């Protein structure tokens, strides 16, 4: 493969609203297949669907027990299974995947046959995980359901074990102001109690019948797998709607708060985490969106950014001080881990940076370094199966550029004036602090 040529998936349709994206590439020793089911977030379904990947991993019709699945994967030379729920924009994305060593590199003199390393077989395994869980009388087995519900509850509660992650989750919750489209991929804790094994299966089988599905496959032989999939039809538990389109789900993000919202929680510990939401309502598709990508990069996206240099290096307030960009919400989220008594100071230093960008205090070096960092990120994605899949899947859901050439060209055009224009729009929408010390330094 020519490495200067852009790496991209070929796409074919294998049914209504089902697309197959494949990349034949011999650079990797790993073969992978991922099935993504894209369900628009709703309060009614999000929590039960979040349980589905967990229940899938417990057993299928063909491999009814946890142990059967694990043994099968070990027999496939340590193949890895993935099943999870994430969120891209307003869509809950349920993934069922497998990755395994390419049989070309497995020494055949060893430990018997390589027959298990077969793409069609791997595809059947993944499809079975997605569509044929082990059921009893048309419902998930009661005991498994109870265990998984309990473990899911623990997982949600356990987010707090990572203070920075918890603080970001709480900030997003605060700015979402109860809007269902703002719910996280794992659903709603208090809704867990209302779920039942039959209802959860029916919800999932319904989602399978009506949601767009994308299948991504990388490695040698994936084109042939596409041909097989075109010839045979995939089986569904409920008959699949013929009207399903692969089109994007047009759900608006939760409206931004008009004034800055403030929220604090107390969790005893050593470090306070400060999170700030900044937005000017510029989302993917807006002409200034590429400038917002720069805004994020200059403020906190890189080690050369204003936050790293000022909050960490100049003021020594933090070990981590950075930002991330949520393109669906058009929101830049700043996070810093600080000593509790420095909370006000840290907030002031971050706001100083925000104000500096508004007043045009952006150097050529900051522009250049950010452009270089973004170029490196986009161009290197072609080296990573995971990064490529994420990019194409995100584009399917959110729109915007899909190819490297498009991504590169739109950031080449951004000027300092564009970034300042975006900076002028940006407002502080919410401040959240997870405080480590109680009431010592406060009014």
């Amino acid at each position: 493969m020519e490495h200067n040529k852009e790496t991209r998936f070929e796409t074919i349709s294998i049914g209504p609203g089902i697309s197959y994206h494949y990349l034949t590439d011999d650079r990797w020793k790993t073969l992978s297949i991922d099935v993504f089911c894209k369900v628009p977030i709703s309060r009614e379904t999000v929590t039960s669907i979040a349980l589905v990947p967990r229940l899938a991993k417990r057993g299928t019709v063909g491999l009814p027990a946890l142990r059967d699945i694990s043994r099968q994967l070990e027999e496939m030379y340590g193949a890895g299974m993935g099943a999870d729920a994430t969120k891209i924009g307003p869509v809950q994305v349920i993934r069922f995947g497998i990755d395994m060593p390419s049989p070309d590199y497995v020494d055949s003199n060893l430990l018997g046959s390589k027959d298990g390393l077969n793409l069609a077989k791997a595809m059947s395994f993944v499809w079975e995980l997605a569509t044929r869980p082990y059921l009893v009388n048309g419902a998930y087995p009661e005991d498994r359901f109870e265990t998984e519900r309990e473990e899911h509850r623990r997982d949600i509660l356990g987010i707090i074990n990572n203070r920075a992650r918890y603080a970001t989750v709480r900030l997003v919750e605060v700015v979402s102001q109860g809007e269902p489209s703002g719910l996280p991929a794992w659903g709603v804790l208090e809704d867990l109690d209302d779920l039942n094994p039959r209802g959860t299966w029916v919800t999932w089988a319904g989602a399978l019948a009506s949601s767009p599905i994308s299948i991504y496959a990388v490695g040698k032989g994936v084109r042939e797998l596409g041909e097989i999939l075109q010839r045979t039809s995939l089986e569904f538990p409920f008959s699949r709607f013929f009207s399903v389109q692969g089109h994007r789900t047009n759900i608006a993000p939760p409206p931004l708060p008009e004034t800055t919202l403030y929220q604090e929680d107390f969790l005893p510990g050593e470090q306070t985490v400060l999170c700030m939401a900044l937005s000017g309502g510029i989302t993917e598709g807006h002409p200034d969106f590429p400038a917002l990508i720069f805004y994020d990069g200059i403020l906190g996206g890189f080690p050369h950014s204003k936050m790293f240099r000022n909050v960490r290096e100049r003021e020594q307030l933090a070990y981590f001080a950075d930002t991330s960009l949520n393109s669906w919400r058009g929101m830049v989220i700043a996070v810093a881990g600080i000593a509790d008594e420095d909370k006000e100071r840290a907030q002031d230093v971050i706001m100083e940076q925000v104000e500096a960008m508004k007043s045009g205090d952006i150097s050529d070096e900051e522009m250049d370094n950010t452009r270089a960092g973004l170029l490196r990120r986009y161009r290197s994605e072609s080296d990573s199966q995971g990064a490529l899949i994420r990019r194409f899947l995100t584009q399917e859901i959110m729109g915007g550029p899909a190819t490297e050439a498009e991504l590169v060209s739109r950031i080449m055009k951004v000027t300092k004036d564009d970034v300042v224009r975006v900076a002028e729009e940006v407002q502080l929408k919410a401040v959240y602090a997870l405080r480590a010390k109680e009431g010592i330094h406060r009014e």
Partner: protein
Amino acid sequence: MSDYCLRNDSLREEIYVSKVKGLTAFVLPKKGFRKKYAEVFVHYGSNDNSFIPPGETEPVDVPPGIAHFLEHKMFEKPWGDAFSAFAKIGASANAYTTNNYTSYLFWTLENFGEALKLLMQVALDPYFTKESVAKEQGIIGQEIGMYDDDPGARLVREAMEALYFKHPVRFDIAGTKESIRQITDELLYKCHRSFYRPSNMSVFVAGDFAPHEAFEYIAQALPDSLLTRYTRSDTCPAPDGSQSSSPDTPVLDIPQRIRPLEPPEVGEDREVFLPVPTPLIHIAWKDDPPGVIGEDTLRQELAASILLDMLFGRSSAFFTEVYEEGLVDDLHCTYEAWPDYSHASMFGQSASPEEFSERVLREVETVNSDPKRRAGLEEDFLRIKKSNLGRYVTLFDSFDTVGEIQAHLHDMGLNIFSYGDILRNLTMDDVLARLDNLRRERSVRVIVRDRDHKKK
């Protein structure tokens, strides 16, 4: 150009090895990839708190956390911050410190030669001032605070403290807020001069290079003065009083590491209170260290990892049992073997950690004492070995993993392909030898839980 080439035909991978200005260099050609990767390994980690510097005779004790502190400070240069300098040429840099190594790395798509030169400056040219040391104490203090709040990190630290009485692996890699306060610019210079020597370092480069081209980049990135920086004047005479080399020959010796004698016994179980919704548990077993560098160390690590998978992995009868009872959700087992220490670890979350831990220890005893269970292990062994061989293939997709394994194994007189051979040739006896050493009396249990918990 290179001294030799390591290769494996069924994997279709090659690693070229050469000494460049005294530094061991590895090149992994990866055709078709755009990313170019480089990592410098210094055989110096948080365990090296006591040593005799080259050319001296008296041992020096330094505060815990100094290797990690030094890693942070190497990015500060008289001309500015090296992170920004990498960014300016389109490269992304990072660094990390472990118990035995310090690493500096970057990846880039362009300006590879320039970035490599910068990486070498980061690792080789120290610049510390009193002010910059004081500044870093604030930043690392926050980093330590972050680990203190992280229940997973606390679990490991407490378990190592409980498992070891003397060995420095019991100290956190970052040190403590108190220990890093004792760090001075002089101490940092001393550690740098002692350990950051070409003979104690290596560099790994991966990407779409012709090997000679990559070695050329490495040669150009290294200062010519490198070999003469560490001359005879630093070194102590050989024990018989003779000089080992002529005055003009550069001597690339390494400091003498001092490790306290660690008894085989372990300390008390621990309980730590943090606001966690579900208790976390870590069970650790102290094993006998292999004592020598080389194949035995690696064989011990691989055999023990497979054993832990056989006993407690997702395909084990034990896992199904405790999972279905709701005793545990996810289990992670690891095994570390170094010439001077080795231990097995198991991590999980459990609402009933005491009961869970008792079940684990009993399971090991049952398997060990019941001849039928012991005999039944053979089938699991073959299946899990097969699974490990498959993962060995796919690790070659990760530049940094190959680099880390190759650099560490090289220091043990092995290489990444001998890793595959040792894995292939592992036997049930290797595994059973480890099973005999998973002893209750050499285990510790650490539980992290909320203070207000109700005991079940």
